């Protein structure tokens, strides 16, 4: 997790109006005996970009399909602009919802040109207005010259722009993006993220995107909803979710995370790195005094310093991540922690090191009963 992506998300605070554009209330979905979505509730506000983030199989794409009306929920309600569109008594067909979708593999119609694809949802428009709208949108996505090309003549990035223009053309209230960047190569992906965010903000559309890529989620969203196993674990702005994860799952899924076992007593928490002042642990209630907890440390919260004697542990592995190097240090109490250093600071393997806590924010913590049964991170 680099700092640059963090900064990109701090622009444009979420506009909050009274009524949410989209609301999910206790939505359930099963395929046969298998329950995919469990009691999912979520509100999305006008002009906001929200990302559903989670590992594959967590139900995020199904959630998107339920919003679009491509699947019917088994329970609960989906409401758009305050009106139920999926519920116990009502089901509005996808074409009548005013919801646009950018599909994962773009789903461009291979038998139509780029311009015809964009015009597809404007069937009922007046011909002149339609042409103007198509031209404006191709302009917006920077494809003025490619209107007459067929999808197989366009590059991946261009196809994505057409898909975006097509879904925006009928002026949807809500735009859904399903893993929108997964079909692009890495360089293009970063560029298209910025581009897509610009276009979405320019049109002011309310957007919900789905991804398993945390960096992507952090960089394009106003808010992130982390999903696991059919449920939303946490919703919040990216920085908040990253720095104050509410569950061990969220902490582990977003970026590198090490969990430092500690013992709370009085004004400090005793850990393998030595004592941490209680003030530096976020919202640790008095009732946790004299209990064991796990403190979350990110690789950029700590530094390893080679020492002779008085060491906390030993460097056991080293991973180059381009501009930075990720070291894993095994502490004397057998806990593993990861720390991030610049690539020019080289520490050989097996070096005895002292670990220094260097965080300018409060650390998150979890009660030990949240530990997964067979993972030791």
């Amino acid at each position, binding site marked *: 997790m680099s700092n640059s992506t963090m900064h990109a998300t701090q622009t444009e605070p979420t506009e909050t109006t009274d009524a949410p554009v989209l609301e999910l209330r206790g939505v359930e979905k099963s395929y046969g005996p298998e329950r*995919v979505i469990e009691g999912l509730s979520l509100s999305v506000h006008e002009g906001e970009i929200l990302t559903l983030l989670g590992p594959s199989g967590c139900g995020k794409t*199904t959630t998107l399909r339920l919003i679009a009306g491509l699947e019917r929920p088994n329970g609960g309600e989906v409401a758009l602009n305050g009106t139920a569109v999926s519920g116990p008594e009502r089901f509005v067909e996808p074409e009548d919802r005013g919801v646009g979708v950018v*599909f994962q593999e773009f789903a461009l119609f291979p038998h139509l040109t780029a311009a015809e694809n964009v015009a597809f949802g404007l069937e009922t428009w007046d011909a002149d207005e339609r042409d103007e709208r198509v031209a404006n949108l191709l302009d917006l996505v920077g494809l003025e010259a490619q209107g007459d090309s067929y999808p197989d003549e366009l590059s991946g990035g261009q196809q994505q722009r057409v898909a975006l223009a097509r879904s925006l053309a009928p002026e949807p209230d809500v735009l859904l993006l399903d893993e929108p960047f997964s079909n692009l190569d890495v360089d293009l992906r970063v560029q298209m993220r910025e581009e897509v965010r610009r276009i979405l903000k320019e049109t002011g559309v309310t957007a919900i995107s789905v991804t398993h890529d945390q960096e992507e989620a952090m960089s394009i969203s106003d808010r992130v909803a982390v999903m696991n196993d059919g449920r939303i674990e946490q919703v919040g702005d990216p920085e908040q979710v990253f720095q104050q994860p509410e569950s061990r799952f969220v902490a582990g899924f977003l970026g590198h995370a090490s969990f430092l076992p500690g013992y709370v007593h009085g004004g400090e928490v005793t850990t393998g790195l030595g004592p941490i002042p209680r003030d530096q642990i976020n919202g640790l209630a008095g009732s946790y005094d004299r209990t064991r907890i796990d403190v979350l440390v990110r690789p950029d919260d700590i530094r390893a310093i080679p020492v002779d004697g008085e060491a906390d542990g030993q460097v056991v592995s080293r991973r180059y991540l381009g501009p930075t190097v990720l070291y894993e240090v095994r502490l004397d109490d057998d806990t593993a922690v990861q720390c991030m250093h610049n690539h020019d600071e080289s520490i050989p393997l097996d070096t005895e090191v002292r670990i220094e806590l260097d965080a300018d924010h409060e650390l998150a913590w979890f009660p030990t009963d949240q530990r997964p049964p067979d993972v030791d991170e």
Partner: protein
Amino acid sequence: MATDTPTIEDAGENLPLPTTIASGAVAAAVLLPLVWLVRTALDVGLSEAIAISTRPSTLQVFVNSAALVTVVTVASVLIGVPLAYLTVRTDLPFRRGFTVAVSLPLVIPSYVGAFAFVSAFGPQGAFQRLLAPLGVERLPEIYGFPGAALVVTLYTYPYVFITTRAALKSLDTTLIDAARTLEHGRWAAFRRVTIPQIKPAVGAGALLVALYALSDFGTPAIMQFDAFTRVIYVEFTSFGRDVASLLSLQLVAVTLLILGLESHIRGNEPLYAGRQGGRTSDTVPLGKWKYVAVAACLAVSGLALVVPVGILLTWLAQGGADVGNALAFRPTYALNSIGVSAGAAFVATVAGLPVAYLAAKHRSRLSDAFERATYVGYAVPGVVLGLALVYLGTSYAQPLYQTVYLLIAAYVVRFLPQAVGSMRASFLRVNPALPEAARTLGRSSFGAFRAVTLPLIAPGLLGGAALVFLTTMKELPATLLLRPSGFKTLVTHIWTATASGYYGHAAVPALILVAVSGLSMLVILSQEGYDVK
């Protein structure tokens, strides 16, 4: 959409209602003629039925037909699969030309082939006369089982060839590359990777061959081989209705058995077979085997094409000047043939559309049953179907009887699965996200179908229609039984001329038939080319 999209395995409750009703109606219409068969057979009475079914001559017929189907199917696979492999995956010279040459036997009606083979290789036939100066007194017997098996194989193996070709072309060749990097030779890779992948396609082709062999009327009749169809026809014309209907029911039972076998081989296909893999044009070098391969291709297409065309041209040259007007050929015969065939192709496409759509996109027990039901009509021999429709027409639909509408209905019942199969395959290739995208852009489910799915399956639609057109052009027994009086087509003219021994008069219509069918074959092959794009 993404990795966690569930498969669309419907339990049946989510089937779209109008399509299901349409599909069910088509299936019911196709099965209707069978109702008559069962009724007539029930009239026989149980003890007599058992007596007829178990008498030695009936058992002999069963053994004959079973042997014919088995030998023809196995031989077709042994010819069709290697030829498909040669023309798709190897550096065989003139691949394009051979592809066409090897597919073309499909356009020659098997009864024309049978006449030609009898005429060429029979006692005192053209070939024997040619070899007589060399002291050849006798050729191996052509009548009976060997001739029937040879002729039916030569004119049906292209079904296997064409389906296998399509599968080989869409095969992801990176899979073969993967196998070879895992220390498999070409042969081992073929056996462990290619064969499992093309098995469903080979099975589908073999199914068409087996059903054709079982229901072919012309060839066993000419080769004097007692298969089901010939015996049923003989029994019927000698007023043995009971025996005919009982034998017909047995024939249907054998058909169901074959369908069950094929279904077992087909197994579970993915719902969306859209990944047209393998851009690598990795062809297998033949080396010195090239000559053997070319010789094999030449031998098969030569035997199947040159013999009948040569014989037809001989007849044409000999002429038939000395017979009256009754046998003179008129161009309207050709127009009649083309007209009813085009009608059948159109109706079969429209009727097959809901069945194919349901079977491809909403796979469930019910939709599978509907699709399978359409195959039953294909397997009911033309003789039986023709008689069933004569009965139904005279009893329940008098105004339709002796009209081209009933004739077209018979063709549709018989050849529907060809349209369904082709369309179903096309539906499977349409990425399910495309109609969904159309829905989210404001189209109704029917609107999305019309604007997106239909244009994308158009090649498959056209290919299926061409196939129905082609087979209708050649259809003999139902045409003979159901045509309005005075309505003559190419095949009825050929039949009349050859049956009365005036072969010369059969030459022109037969050549026209082969030419028109050849054109529709080119349509089918060019559609295959479109798929490759």
